[in-house]
């Protein structure tokens, strides 16, 4: 996690630097806002990693770890197959098409998306 955290901190610092450099050389609001927002977003991720993941102890970070060191623990299960991703993507696409073609389609697709989202949650339990 150390390198991941370093990555986000250095990216956020770079973004702050370039936002300041851009503002002081250009006085242009749109670009400064976007660079500033980028710095904020990267800083947010870095802060999250500091706060939420400070206890992280990943086996992948240990230089001398063996494969056996990582065995025996279960952190979750994978679903090999699920019809829900296809259904969710189709429903979201129907929302988009519905918005430009027919509001009724959009509303029905939105309801379908919510229902599929619920099924995702049920399947995850």
């Amino acid at each position: 996690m150390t390198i991941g955290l370093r990555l986000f901190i250095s990216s956020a610092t770079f973004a702050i630097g370039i936002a300041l450099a851009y503002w002081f050389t250009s006085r242009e609001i749109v670009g400064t806002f976007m660079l500033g927002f980028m710095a904020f977003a990267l800083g947010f991720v870095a802060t999250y990693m500091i706060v939420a993941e400070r206890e992280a102890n990943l086996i992948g970070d240990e230089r001398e770890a063996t494969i056996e060191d990582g065995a025996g623990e279960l952190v979750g299960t994978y679903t090999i197959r699920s019809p829900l991703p296809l259904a969710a993507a189709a429903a979201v696409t129907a929302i988009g098409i519905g918005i430009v073609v027919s509001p009724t389609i959009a509303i029905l697709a939105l309801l379908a998306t919510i229902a599929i989202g619920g099924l995702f949650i049920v399947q995850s339990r």
Partner: protein
Amino acid sequence: MSAAAPAFVEAPPRNDLLGWLTTTDHKRIGILYLMTSLGYFGVAGLLSLAIRTQLARPNNTFVTPHEYAQLFTLHGTAMIFLFVAPFALGLANFLIPLQIGAADMAFPRLNATSYWMFLFGGLVIFLGAATNEGAAASGWSAYPPLSEIKISTGLGQDLWIVGVFLVSVATILTSINFVTTVFIYRAPGMTMWRIPIFTWEMVATSLLVFMAFPSLAATLLLLFVDRHLGGHAFDPAYGGSPVLWQHLFWFFGHPEVYVMILPYFGVISEIIPVFSRKPIFGYTGLVLAAFAIAGLSMGVWAHHMFTTGFVNNPFFSFVSFLIAVPTGVKFFNWIATMWRGSISFETPMLFAIGFLLNFLIGGITGVMISSPPIDYQAHDSYFVVAHFHYVLGGGSLFAIFAALFFWWPKMFGRKLDESLGRWCFALLFVGFNVTFLPMHAMGILGMPRRVDSYAASGPLPALNLIATCGSYVMLAGVLLFVYNAVVTARAGRPVSNDPWGANSLEWWTSSPPPEHNFDSLPPIRSERPVYDAR
């Protein structure tokens, strides 16, 4: 938190259509991404042939001007949003868990959802062609006022907005998956400084996606509001500004160029050491250069806007020049890797060398037009068309073919035919350069891009005819690749785990890998664990 390989819900493998439609296996999703993006490449390629056919002679009537505008809009959109970038996502989907010793991506269902959104998004973009007024015709950059409702009155532009929005959201979701997987699911001993360069490049690419794609999504929403909900964000008659669109769009658009090239830097960094029989030169330098390029690319968006007169040209010119430094580091490292290596010229290596030669030309012309005085002359001319095709066609496309030839045995368990592969490379290399090299001259002679005709006198007709001939040579190269794939599928010989004598972890497992990826893993003590174990 301690992470180990998560267990699978055991289920009998399904190879039927339902198995593919419901799969959440990263390898299958990767292959779906690759095949879908290649399908879109086929369509975009045919569109480009129609463009070149129209331009084969001046005042041609192969298509009408409006149809021509639709052709170059769909060609650009498909190549950028549906082929070059998504192909890298497909490759990363297939490779990242294998390269880091994981069983799958961190969020398999999100991964599958991203793929389907990408597929549907692309179809929605093309759906516009079936509407009464045709597909979007405002260019892939959709500048207002061309994309506003007053000019683009049809549904095609709306479907373009929806389709590109879906693709951009899918790309963001996939990138979240990549970064989480790399940070969390590395095998024991696979520290970050041991992950393969391709995986590193995908981390850098994913960071770029996080920073750039939200801007695109927001900009598309603004355009939709302008078109249908009475907004005037880009309408100067009501206090809006088309320049605002350019800022917001290129804040995404230029990093997108690096989203389309960084993964392929990774591909080249994987292939060159294998066929040079040497470890990669300057692993750390390559990684840092990738992040330097990614970071700097966020500060160069307005070099696309030099000629508007509304941007700080020296700032953007300076930062654009700076990008040449880390890119040069990469070039130096690739050449140093080959230097005194025992080089063998199998097809992947030929394409990698083709990449180096073509990308060098694209890179140098990029440095040229980073200079505002030159850009004022070359802007919106065929010189720029030549430049970005050398970067994304000569660069990314050649790396894509290198990747296909290199990882095809791992994906499908059979090696593509070498002899056909060399012919494929020769046709593509010659065809590409015959097509795009003359475009530099066309641009210098003043031929603007996005026009369906040109002056009948002077050298332009001959140059355009040469370029059109080159495009058909490229078509022959692509068809030969398809033939090669079919022949290999029918009569290719099964290969071992590691047919190239490669270095990274994906070559440890069987070809193709089992559903759970690895039956065993070697000790991971360097960035070349398979080499160490040999």
